[in-house]
């Protein structure tokens, strides 16, 4: 007998969150206010994502949690343990085996299927926030589709850096209607926002939930003469040799040595198990 209700939150709270999720799915990209609860973790650690996951989980689900693509970082490990303890659900590190994936700042390299749900942790859901501090005004701008200001941010990028230098949290337009912050995923992941799985975004401190139903049209904003570009480090993964994945740069010593590895640890592991070898992979089972 567990001392916790299933997935920590009480049933009424989960119903309230599910209503917000359903509304978000009905209006793709629209930020639905919800009564965010105090969670046993600090704001900024994924309180929004955890609440959305808790409301979405069923006892039959298999949960995967990633932080910057990795299954083994503090944030991912503690949230995974949290749900192991409070919901007693099965957990996995394998993308294909998971039914719900909670993520911070990445979309898994492997394509998701229609049977999977991706839950994002969102720090600041309002894409217009840094240019327009007033919430009243930004809501009005969303309501009236006045999105010129979003391009002012991109204009400033080009004026200052010669190109659109926004590399993460790159604003997108959903189904030709709402401009949405895709959470701080690298813009490399933006094209993957059009996917088969359901995507749910939870911002705990800001008390907003929004969503993308499967196969929703998501367009990254740009200028006609400065089109949107995906960027990644121009290297191959040092461990698995992948040339198409998003890479982390790892500093090896204080003499400038560095290596690039897949940020998606599960993708990298699967490739190495399939026999792929990168330039810096050792003879034995590196990182296994």
């Amino acid at each position, binding site marked *: 007998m567990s001392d916790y209700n299933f997935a920590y939150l009480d049933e009424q709270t989960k119903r309230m969150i599910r209503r917000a999720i359903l509304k978000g799915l009905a209006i793709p990209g629209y930020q639905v206010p919800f009564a965010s609860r105090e969670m046993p973790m600090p704001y900024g650690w994924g309180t929004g994502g955890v609440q959305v996951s808790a409301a979405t989980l069923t006892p039959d689900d298999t949960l995967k949690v990633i932080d910057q693509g990795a299954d083994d970082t503090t944030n991912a490990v503690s949230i995974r343990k949290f749900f192991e303890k409070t919901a007693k659900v099965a957990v996995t590190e394998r993308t294909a085996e998971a039914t719900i994936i909670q993520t911070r700042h990445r979309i898994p390299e492997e394509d998701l299927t229609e049977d999977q749900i991706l839950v994002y942790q969102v720090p600041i859901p309002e894409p217009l926030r840094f*240019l327009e501090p007033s919430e009243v005004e930004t809501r009005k701008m969303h309501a009236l589709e006045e999105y010129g200001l979003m*391009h002012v941010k991109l*204009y400033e990028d080009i*004026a*200052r850096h010669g190109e659109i230098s926004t590399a993460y949290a790159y604003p997108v337009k959903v189904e030709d209607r709402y401009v949405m912050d895709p959470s701080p995923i690298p813009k490399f992941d933006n094209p993957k926002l059009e996917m088969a799985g359901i995507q749910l975004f939870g911002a705990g401190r800001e008390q907003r939930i929004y969503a993308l139903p499967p196969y929703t049209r998501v367009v990254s904003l740009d200028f006609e003469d400065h089109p949107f570009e995906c960027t990644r480090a121009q290297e191959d993964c040092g461990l698995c040799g992948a040339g198409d994945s998003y890479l982390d740069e790892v500093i090896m010593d204080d003499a400038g040595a560095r290596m690039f590895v897949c940020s998606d640890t599960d993708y990298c592991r699967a490739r190495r198990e399939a026999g792929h070898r990168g330039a810096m992979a050792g003879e034995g089972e590196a990182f296994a």
Partner: protein
Amino acid sequence: MKDMSVQDRPLLRVEGLTKFYGGRIGCEGVGFDLWPGEVMGIVGESGSGKTTLLNCLAGHLAPDAGRVLFDLDGEAVDTVTMSEPARRKLGRTDWAFVHQHAADGLRMNVSAGGNVGERLMAVGARHYGDIRASALDWIERVEIPGDRIDDRPTAFSGGMRQRLQIARNLVTGPRLVFMDEPTGGLDVSVQARLLDLLRGLVREMGLSAIIVTHDLAVVRLLADRLMVMKDGHVVETGLTDQVLDDPQHGYTQLLVSSVLQV
């Protein structure tokens, strides 16, 4: 503007515009016609209701009574009762508003070019090169050196900020400009330069403008017609020179005689 069918009707017709603040009068029963290419000055002392009137005209305040009819494609549309999206659209296309404090009308954390370009992007411009070219053109037209285009307004002097605000407002070619004390808070030499610039732009673009000010010298230079307000009411109207040189109402006489002579 060249079209005669447009010329024979006023650009803006105001009828019985009234705004109360609780029991106090903001402005009451104000009515006038503004014709294309005409500059109207509204003068009066502090608290006379001139800024209230301007905000009601520009849709920033909801008046309690009256109509503000704007000539939109040959049809007089009441901007008081029109939908908010339509009014906001008007505010970034056909209308412009120059605030007394440039910081209210500019985005201080966005470069000068971005400030001017915002209105273009708000009406759908999506070509960076074109937006930047128009922004540069306008920045130079208001006598700001072109190499300051990427500086933020926080790095500008008061006079430059005010000129930048004007550039930002005029870039989309509005037909009607509302100005609230555009020269307030500037020293006299900077004021003179700004007035010179404004006068040039108004003539060149055939703009209609409504200028609220307490500075009679400003209206003498810019305005064709004058409206004198006191305690929320219009006490005298007429051609600028006529009102200033031969004031009829006691208050106007007081106002004109109060100007300090150097």
